[in-house]
Each structure stands twice: as C-alpha cells, then as structure tokens.
C-alpha cells in the first residue's frame, strides 16, 4: 500500500469530538487537498499523521507502515511542513537544514550535497550562510518544504502552508508543490481552507466538523458550479 492511507480515525479532546470516523487516501503522484473551514479538525488530523499524538481509534498508514506500531519506518518516509513556522531564526539557513538532516540520521558530505542541491532547485544557494530571520515569509516556507524533502520521503504533508503569505508567494508555492507531485511522484497531502489553491485535476477531501463530507476529483465534485460555491454550499450552517 503506497502513499498515505487513513482508515476510520476518530479522536476526542476530552468530551469534544475532533475527528469522527475519518477515512481517506493520498496516492503517489497525486496532489490531494484536504479542504475544510477553520475548526474542521485539519490540525488534529495532522498531529495524528505526524505521530505527535497517538491514534486511539483507526489507523494511519504511511507507505503501508502504521504510525502507531511502526513509527520509525512510517516517519522516515514522511515529510512534514507544519502550519506554524519551525525554523530557528537565530541560526543560518545551512545550520537549520543540517539540524534537520541530523535528526534523520544524515551527516557529513552527503548531507551537505543534498542541502546544496535542494537550495539550487529553489535558486537560494547563495543564501545558505544567512540567518533564517533574514529571509522573507515566502522564502522561509520554500526552505521548510525543501527541508521536509531532504530525507527523500515518499509522502509530503503540509498543514495550511500558505497562511500569512502574499498572493504571489502563495501561488508560487502552490505551483511548486503541484510540480513535486507530478514530477517526483510524491504523494502530496495539502490542508487548506482556500479553494483557489486547488485545481480541477487534484484529489479533494472535504472535512467538516470532524467528518469527511465528500471525496473525489475536485473537478467532478464541483460539477458546473465554482469550487468556492460548492464548498460554501457543503459547509453552510443552517441559519
């Protein structure tokens, strides 16, 4: 089983149910968008996928490895970009990337070569010596995506990665990650509440109040209406 598979996952914060029987798949080479309004349970789902909190009901499989029973194998095949920024702003770009590489058991020349190659792809190699604080928001995000790919994972998950960015950076990053899925065969799982980040050819999972309301190809789901209208129609709260 490849890519990301989530089967019948439920999760409660005390008495409050955050996720209720969620099942979904993000396949290799596909850009799968997890669309949901704020409070839908997206961040909880990400915490479960990244092993930050333990699954109590249901299973999360990464490339067939269960995060609960085989976390090392699962996490070594997973790249994560968190919603909150996780760079050390006081440290240089290179030190940030080396730190992450070391957490995945990489070091020395091989790690430095991967870092150079990753930054070349972003056209940012000349900025390796700068402190992360000196990068703008868009560049920081691109760097975090490059960092999440250093250990060559098969699955890349991103939790609202464009929050707080200007329109140009948002579009550039969205395009970049679509390319990663198409060119590198990555299984991309992208959480968002912004419909303009989703193309008709993408897979779409609509999450609302902890449940999957709809899943399928975005173009087929929306039919003749605009995706935005479809989304609002699905998640409308009766007045």
């Amino acid at each position: 089983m490849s890519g990301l598979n989530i089967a019948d996952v439920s999760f409660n914060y005390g008495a409050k149910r955050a996720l209720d029987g969620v099942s979904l798949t993000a396949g290799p080479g596909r850009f799968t968008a997890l669309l949901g309004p704020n409070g839908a349970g997206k961040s909880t789902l990400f915490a479960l996928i990244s092993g930050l909190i333990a699954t109590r009901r249901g299973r999360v499989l990464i490339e067939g490895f269960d995060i609960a029973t085989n976390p090392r194998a699962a996490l070594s095949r997973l790249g994560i970009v968190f919603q909150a920024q996780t760079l050390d702003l006081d440290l240089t770009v290179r030190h940030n990337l080396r730190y992450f590489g070391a957490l995945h058991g990489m070091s020395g020349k091989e790690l430095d070569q991967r870092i150079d190659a990753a930054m070349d792809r972003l056209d940012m190699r000349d900025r390796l010596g700068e402190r992360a604080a000196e990068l703008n928001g868009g560049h920081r995000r691109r760097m975090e995506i490059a960092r999440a790919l250093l250990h060559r994972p098969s699955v890349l998950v991103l939790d609202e990665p464009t929050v707080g960015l200007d329109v140009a950076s948002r579009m550039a990053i969205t395009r970049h990650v679509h390319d990663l899925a198409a060119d590198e065969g990555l299984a991309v799982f992208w959480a968002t509440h912004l419909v303009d980040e989703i193309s008709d050819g993408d897979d779409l999972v609509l999450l609302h109040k902890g449940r999957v309301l709809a899943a399928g190809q975005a173009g087929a789901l929306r039919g003749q209406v605009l995706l935005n209208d479809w989304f609002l129609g699905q998640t409308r709260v009766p007045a």
Partner: protein
Amino acid sequence: MSYRIALTAITLRELRRFLSQRGRFFAALVRPLVWLVVFAAGFRAALGLSIIPPYQTYITYEVYITPGLCGMILLFAGMQNALSLVYDREMGTMRLLLSSPLPRPFILFAKLFAGTVVAVAQVYAFLVVALLIGVDIPLSGLAFILPALILSGMMLGSLGLLLSATISRLENFAGVMNFVIFPMFFLSTALYPLWKMAESSPLLRDICAMNPFSHAVELIRFALYGQIAPVPLLVVLGCGAVFFALAVFFYDPRRGLQRSKA
C-alpha cells in the same frame, strides 16, 4: 550511529542558540554573582563555619557557597529548559523533533542533555569570574566537577520536565519559583551546612538532608576537591533515573498543541 549524530546536532543547536542570545548569558551569570558578592559579604560575619569535609582548613563563606551557587545555576537552567520544552515557546521546534523517526525517550533525553551542556557552560563562566574576584577554589577542581555538573544538571532538568509535564496549575515560572526552586534552594546545603541547620531545627536539617538538591550540591562540592561523595552520587543517579522515567511517562505534546490552538 544515527543517535550520536542526532544528539550532537541537538546539543550544537542549543549551544548556538544560547551563544546568539547574549542577554540570556549575562542574566544567567549575574544572578549567582550577586549572591556570591552581596549575599556572601553580609553573611560572612554572621556565620561561623567549622571545618567539615571536604575542607581541611577554615574557609571563607564565599568558598562554602560556591558549589551551592553552581547548583543554583543548574537548578534555574533545568527548570527554565523544561518549561520551554513543554510549553509553546519551543513548540514549533519540538514538533519538528517529535515527528522525526527518533524514539520519544531519546528525544527528551537529548533535549535534557543539550540543556545541561548549556547550563554547565554557564557554571564554568561563573567559576571563572569567581576565580577572578579572588574566591579560593582549586583550579584542578574545575576538571573534576564536570561529571558531577552533568549528572546534577540532568537530574534537575528531569525534575523540571516531570513537574511541567504533570502539574498543570504551576503554569508560569513564578509559580515554579515560589513552590519549587526557592524551597529546594533554601532547604539545602547550598547556603548553610547541615550542622548549622540542626542548630535551629532538627526537622529543617532532616528536610535538607533528604532534599535531592542538597545531594547535587554535595556531589559538586566534593568533586571540586577531587573526591567522590558516594551517597550523593547514588542519590543523584537514582533520583535522576526516577524523575526521567516519570517525565517520559507523563510527557504529552498535546498540552502544547491545545495551548497553541487556544
């Protein structure tokens, strides 16, 4: 192999961050120095010290409290590290660590170790200043105390982690100061020897004798003179292991998650 790479990287990161924040460095240095210079000057007259091991001659009060102040640096640093580890300040980078393929007990151990290395660097900076202002401590002791400082630092860091992972009502540093750091520091052998405590109250002496922090201070005190204190060593090792095991058991990253959501 991958553990060694990760441990080195986590420790280096902590050191680099510490060095890039000069304010933190000076704040950490000033606190024990104020005690050494101001407090010791006042108490020198009030406290008569008899010759007790490991000392072989009469010593000044400054010499007596120096190991205690080393312990104080470790105590404050340990609590501060633990709090930042549990609460949101480090939540972003903690997420990065916890979602790496390293086992959680190792991650917590590595964070505590890295914090301890930074705290030990602060102790050495303090000792250099203490030597410069004329406190009579043996130079060779600077090498001997290193293992004692690391063990004590790990024990106090584990205690901090355990406290912050279990007691949700002690939410801010002020609470931990009043209910943990101050009692631990004052009810220990850091500032007065046990016999001095016994003069005022046998109960106080017993509390001091049981306080793990006293044992950390005595471990450092004896190590400064090239001696190994067996009972303090066992207490520090035992308490450290128990605190750490409990901290791992109770540590729950959801605490930080829920806070950052709120």
